[in-house]
């Protein structure tokens, strides 16, 4: 079956493109996911991914590239959550819940009213096989941009993830770094839209990162492992998706979770079995 898969990959252009997109998404989500997991922002990742829905709808209505609309709306959601947090006693998870449900609801309404050609199911769950050439190029460009941003602001991201209070006391712009991460999170979500869809993006963000977290004691190794697990999950997931005619997004997510379960059980020192030995 695997040789058939490889043969098909070589033979069919659309499948090569799907694979390339999937791997790119796996890597970028894996890298950003490390910071999301270490900062305890898993719920925020889920929220931003859902919140971009109206941005996608509005972009289609205005006939602009949906990357632009989604990125703007994602940032507005992040600011909204931050604003409620800082100006009321409402707890962080509640303000996240309030804002992202609203955005998601408005998105669903807009898509229904707009009568555009957008297929809601496709946005929600992704379909990597229908990715157009333009969108694939955008995915690769934005993915590369996000990786460059992480590289440039690496030391700021690490310090503000580990000890934001010390960083702020010493004059670093902790808030700015937070919103930079939110911008990257939004971009990554948009990039992943067609591969896994908005509902399951959070899995690609936090599952490979959490797997890597169980396997290493070094930040740089964690990022590398997380990206690797994301990429491999995409390849294996697409293989099953193709071989058994399954949806691409859910297949990738299941594979990523299998890796997590393996690490959860067998990780040296931090795994369940190591704990009881």
């Amino acid at each position, binding site marked *: 079956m695997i040789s058939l898969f490889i043969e098909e990959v070589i033979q069919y252009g659309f499948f090569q493109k799907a694979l390339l997109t999937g791997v790119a998404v796996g890597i970028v989500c894996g890298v950003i996911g490390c910071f999301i997991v*270490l900062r305890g922002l898993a719920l925020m990742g889920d929220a931003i991914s859902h919140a971009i829905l109206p941005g996608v709808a509005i972009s289609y209505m205005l006939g602009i590239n949906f990357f632009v609309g989604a990125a703007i709306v994602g940032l507005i959601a992040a600011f909204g959550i931050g604003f409620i947090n800082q100006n009321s006693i409402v707890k962080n998870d509640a303000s996240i819940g309030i804002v992202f449900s609203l955005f998601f609801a408005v998105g669903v309404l807009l898509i229904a009213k707009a009568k555009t050609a957008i297929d809601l199911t496709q946005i929600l769950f992704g379909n990597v096989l229908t990715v157009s050439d333009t969108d694939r190029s955008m995915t690769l460009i934005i993915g590369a941009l996000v990786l460059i941003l992480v590289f440039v602001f690496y030391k700021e991201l690490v*310090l503000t993830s580990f000890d934001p*209070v*010390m960083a*702020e*006391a*010493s*004059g670093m712009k902790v808030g700015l770094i937070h919103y930079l991460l939110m911008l990257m999170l939004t971009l990554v979500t948009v990039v992943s839209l067609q591969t896994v869809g908005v509902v399951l993006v959070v899995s690609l963000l936090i599952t490979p990162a959490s797997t890597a977290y169980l396997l290493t004691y*070094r930040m740089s*190794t964690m990022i590398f492992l997380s990206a690797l697990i994301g990429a491999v999950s995409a390849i294996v997931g697409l293989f099953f998706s193709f071989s058994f005619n399954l949806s691409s997004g859910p297949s990738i997510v299941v594979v990523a979770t299998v890796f997590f379960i393996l690490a959860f059980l067998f990780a040296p020192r931090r795994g369940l079995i190591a704990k009881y030995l």
Partner: protein
Amino acid sequence: MFKVNNLGVTYNNKVRALENANVELPLGKIYGIIGPNGAGKSSFIKGVLNLVKHTGEVTVDGTLIKKKQRDISYVAQRSDLDMTFPISVLQCVVLGTIPGLGLFKRPGKKEFEIAKEALEKVGMLDYKDNQIGELSGGQFQRVLIARALAQKSKLVFLDEPFVGIDVHSEEIIIKVIRDLRKEGVTIFIIHHDLSKARDYFDGLILINKTILAYGNVDDVFTEENLKLAYGSNIFVKVGENS
């Protein structure tokens, strides 16, 4: 001169943690910040460091402290940090050099040397490759002190550094802090153990919702002032300890 002018801290839930706090103290000394639980000691530091919304202003030699933040090291209570964070002891100390680096500069050989020197001073160089979660409370506190040393700042603020740590670590930290004073660094330490106040500090800031007294230990550490801050029961405790 370190000058706090009319500092007030009120949290979002309208709880007034601190009001009308005024302090004027010379630099280059070790100051203890003391007061009962919930008196606003941490709020005082956070207000001074602009970590929380506050009124009033703080100056160092006439310059607003906001403009000198690169010169500040702050070590919050250990419990606020994630001990499972994937970072080694050495990398943790290198983080101290980051606020002083430019935007696109990465910590290099020089920064790692600074970090190793700092670890040496607190007797933790042998642990440089350990993950921080593998350390005891006292060892980790020494690593945080090393990180503050690596920042090479002029003002150091420590929030309850001696809580829950071993005697050996406490001795090392006190020694390191005294060495810093020799270099002209000003150190502020939130501390709750009154019995050590005379031994550790050059001066005190006594807090309970506002600044009750500040200045030399002998001037502040009086029956009258402590009664003002803690109520009347305090003298039983002090008597037992000394």
